[in-house]
């Protein structure tokens, strides 16, 4: 049975989540995120406009082309930085705006505060990045004409898209938790974000015992089409889907828990920030 306290906390968390969704999607600060997610769309549009006729005829290449775009550009750059921008600002943005105290003066526990904000970030990031990935997917297949559209709408095409979207959603949960924590810890969280991007980029070249310390290692195990990572990549045995799911879920939960612990001792000293 749900207690009145639990109901109250759920209501408060949802209020915060709705507020964060509005801020992330419709405020001036979301412009940078929209510019970022517009990049793959603009590139795919240019590709569609200037694609040679000989390539248009070969629709089968679209599957591997999207796989490469997804691995090297969407996941490792767009999804990564969009999450960084959305989640870092959940706390750091309000600290810089000097308006965090209004939320801290509400009768809600710091854990509810963190969970509500995180939920809002996840919903916003998923909305933006799922739409971006879907549109990019369509723009990769579209220039190939009717055969491309057929391939895209076939059972395999839809299943591929679903897998990519699943990766994006999991990435939002995992990177989101990490960047929210970074926003609480660091005055300039973009520096650790870039360092972590370096680590994620190096993952294919790391031995297995180090690969497990990255999110991308687990995320790509859901990828429907493998990509060639280059001659220097150290191949590891693919992680079973349930291990990857568990690893991402547990690490996200641990990071959100850590964020709630940090938030519990959060003080308002704007002049120091």
């Amino acid at each position, binding site marked *: 049975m749900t207690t009145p306290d639990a109901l109250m906390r759920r209501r*408060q968390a949802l*209020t915060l989540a709705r507020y964060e969704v509005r801020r992330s999607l419709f405020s001036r600060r979301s412009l940078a995120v929209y510019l970022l997610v517009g990049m793959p769309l603009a590139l795919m549009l240019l590709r569609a406009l200037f694609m040679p006729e000989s390539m248009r005829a070969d629709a089968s290449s679209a599957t591997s082309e999207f796989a490469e775009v997804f691995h090297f550009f969407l996941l490792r750059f767009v999804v990564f930085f969009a999450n960084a921008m959305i989640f870092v600002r959940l706390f750091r943005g309000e600290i810089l705006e000097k308006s965090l105290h*209004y939320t801290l003066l509400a*009768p*809600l526990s710091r854990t509810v505060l963190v969970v509500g904000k995180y939920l809002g970030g996840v919903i916003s990031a998923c909305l933006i990045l799922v739409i971006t990935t879907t549109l990019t997917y369509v723009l990769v297949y579209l220039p190939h004409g009717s055969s491309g559209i057929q391939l895209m709408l076939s059972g395999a095409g839809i299943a591929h898209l679903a897998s990519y979207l699943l990766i994006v959603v999991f990435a939002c949960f995992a990177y989101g938790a990490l960047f929210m924590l970074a926003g609480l810890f660091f005055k300039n969280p973009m520096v650790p974000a870039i360092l972590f991007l370096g680590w994620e980029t190096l993952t294919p070249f790391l031995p297995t015992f180090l690969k497990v310390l990255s999110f991308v290692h687990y995320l790509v195990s859901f990828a429907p089409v493998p990509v060639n990572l280059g001659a220097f990549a150290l191949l590891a045995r693919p992680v079973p889907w349930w291990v990857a799911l568990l690893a991402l879920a547990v690490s996200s939960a641990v990071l959100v828990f850590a964020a709630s612990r940090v938030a519990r001792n959060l*003080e308002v000293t704007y002049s*120091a920030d």
Partner: protein
Amino acid sequence: MSSDRIVFRDVSKFYGEVLGVNKVNLEVAPGLTGLVGPNGSGKSTLMHLMTGLLRPGRGEVSVLGVSPDCPEELFRLVGYCTQYDNFPNGSTGLSFLRFALALHGYSKSEVDERAWAALTRVGLTDAATRRIAGYSKGMRQRIKLAHAQCHDPQVLVLDEPLNGLDPMGRAEMIDLFTALAKEGRHVIVSSHILHEVDVISDGVIMIHGGAIVAEGEIRAVRGEITSHPIQVLIRCDRPHIVASRVFELEHIVEARIVGDEGLLIRTRNASDFFTQFNRIVIDTGVIVETVAPADESVHAVYDYLIGEGLGGGSA
């Protein structure tokens, strides 16, 4: 444990090497309490500690028996109007209050009802749907006051709440604070305008260099300052006669004629003076218009204890 006091027990707070407040022991009773001190004295630090926006490095704070570490309980009891003049980007007065009230868990209809009631109380109904970014300083101050009291708190902590308000607005807000205090609530007001603190406060807390230098009713605080003789202003028809008689009293330090009918007395023993003064009046037959303490004001006590001019900043 339930209590009707705000209690600080040996509370210290340092910002790195910089002192915020040091070994503060306080018990604040219900009513209107003025918090005064110069810039950087620790007024805002004290208010932040009361509301959990800062944590003490040492000691304990409790507000009506609730620790600031329990925001779920604390902010049902406390409303805080900070000195920060910033608001969430894009907020209107109404949306700002709606969000705050929704976080309290009120139903949608109650959120609206309370938001409009708070806006009415501070006279902002016409500007409710305008963006706060376009508000004047006074309007921003009013919306912060509305935010602090929209959930009907038992304790109102107000950091320089009259800043930016026009004289009419100041009078309205002072009436509101006084009315809230009369209802038995705690209203704690920091202000650098000593005259206002004097007019509205039941009690005063004076802070200097992070330490509490005086606390209590202003008359009682004044009475304890033995280093400065108490001043009494007498208005009567023959002040020079009274002056010559009071000079005979042992504890009189000074008797000075002020204007045509005024006599300023400085005495080391006020209660004895008042007893003896009655005898003088009967003996001489002077007609006394008024007898009033001349330095039982926050300003005078502040000068005696701290002896500095007040600025308008925060700690």
